């Protein structure tokens, strides 16, 4: 039975180690507003920030060229850094890039690697907590989006999405619908129906 939980709510009467919880006095408490899935005994946060992990794919905008490094806006409290000598492509402020997280250091800087320049297209910002739902289980939702709208879609774990070609407006509408209804059941089917109805 899934239920919505709030910070400070008791998850279990014993101490369990689980993301988005803390233990105190033999009890486990939630720290976020989220959905508790009892069968998997896991918490899916409904809101929240992206916490960088190694090998996360991100979309960002180059903010500044400092000579030895490029500063990248990742739409999060942390700034992205690309070390120029490891970048094959020449970058300039304003460029949209797609890169991988190499390292998240103690200075809370996100070191990026393998940047790829993205030309044209449109950027959509979504809540980072909804990105896993946009990708879906084994990419099902993302494949549905790409097939339905015939667009190229690149998803950054930081909540920035890049869309180009096909029906961009329809893709945007679908992405925003997923963001809104991420916590409901049967969403993939509804998105499928939505594309069948409008059809590209």
């Amino acid at each position: 039975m899934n239920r919505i939980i709030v910070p400070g709510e008791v998850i279990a009467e014993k101490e369990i180690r689980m993301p988005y919880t803390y233990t105190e006095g033999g009890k486990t408490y939630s720290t976020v507003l989220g959905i508790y899935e009892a069968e998997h005994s896991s918490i899916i946060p409904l809101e929240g920030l992206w916490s960088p992990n190694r090998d996360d794919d991100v979309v960002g905008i180059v903010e500044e060229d400092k000579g030895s490094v490029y500063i990248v806006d990742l739409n999060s409290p942390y700034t992205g850094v690309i070390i120029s000598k490891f970048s094959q492509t020449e970058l300039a402020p304003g460029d949209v890039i797609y890169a991988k997280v190499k390292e998240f250091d103690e200075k809370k800087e996100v070191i990026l690697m393998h940047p790829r320049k993205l030309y044209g297209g449109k950027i959509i910002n979504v809540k980072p907590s909804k990105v896993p739902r946009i990708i879906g289980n084994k990419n099902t939702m993302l494949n549905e989006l790409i097939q339905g709208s015939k667009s190229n879609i690149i998803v950054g774990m930081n909540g920035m999405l890049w869309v180009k070609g096909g029906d961009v407006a329809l893709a945007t509408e679908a992405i925003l619908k997923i963001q809104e209804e991420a916590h409901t059941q049967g969403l993939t089917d509804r998105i499928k129906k939505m594309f069948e109805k409008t059809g590209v």
Partner: protein
Amino acid sequence: MFKLEGNKPQLIIDGKRTDGRGFDELRPIKIEANILKNANGSAYIEWGNNKILAAVYGPKEALPKHTADPTMAIIKSRYTMAPFSSLEEHGRSGPNRRATEISKVTSEVFENIIMREMFPGTEIDIFIEVLQSDGGTRAAGITVASVALAAAGIPMYDLPYAVSAGKIGDQMVLDLNKIEDNYSDADIPMAISPRNGDILLLQMDGSITKEDFSTAYSMVKKAGATISKIQKDALKAPYEKIIEKYR
């Protein structure tokens, strides 16, 4: 509505307060979460005649840079009253001594409840805007700000609430309104962490005895169950509405 007794209005008539409440009765509370699109989290509260809006931004890069703490997030609260908010002299708009003080104590409440060490070098902004005031706005402000923080997805140890207790004559009362606040013998706003009953904010003007304080604390804790439930329901409502739609 109330009789004057010398310079003081008579605040308790036939065992009822000026607005017909019992001694340990709260004013009606209504909270709505997620009402501002631009903010990371927001909430609106109607607590009796108090109408307060709270918005949360962040965590974001702490600016100016010298305020940043490399080990944890800093909390910046800003309590303000709208120019049209007040009844007579109670609180004025703009930055003043009172607003600065309330902003400070509000920051301190949330410094103890937000998991700040998860976001080093950042700041979290809490804005509390009083649109209409009728006593107890700092308590209502903290109550609504904690809903806004949870709605912003900021990890917290608990969902704190605040309410004031006071003393009228020999009687301890809960949740003072403006008239009671002005003429009561004591006014004690308290913020509580409902998980274990920790006191996060405790201020007082007037004087009370030790026994009075125990009464006040138990009154606040009892009322807290009601307030906590309203806070939780407000947080869940927007999501439950969408779940309900596709059931």
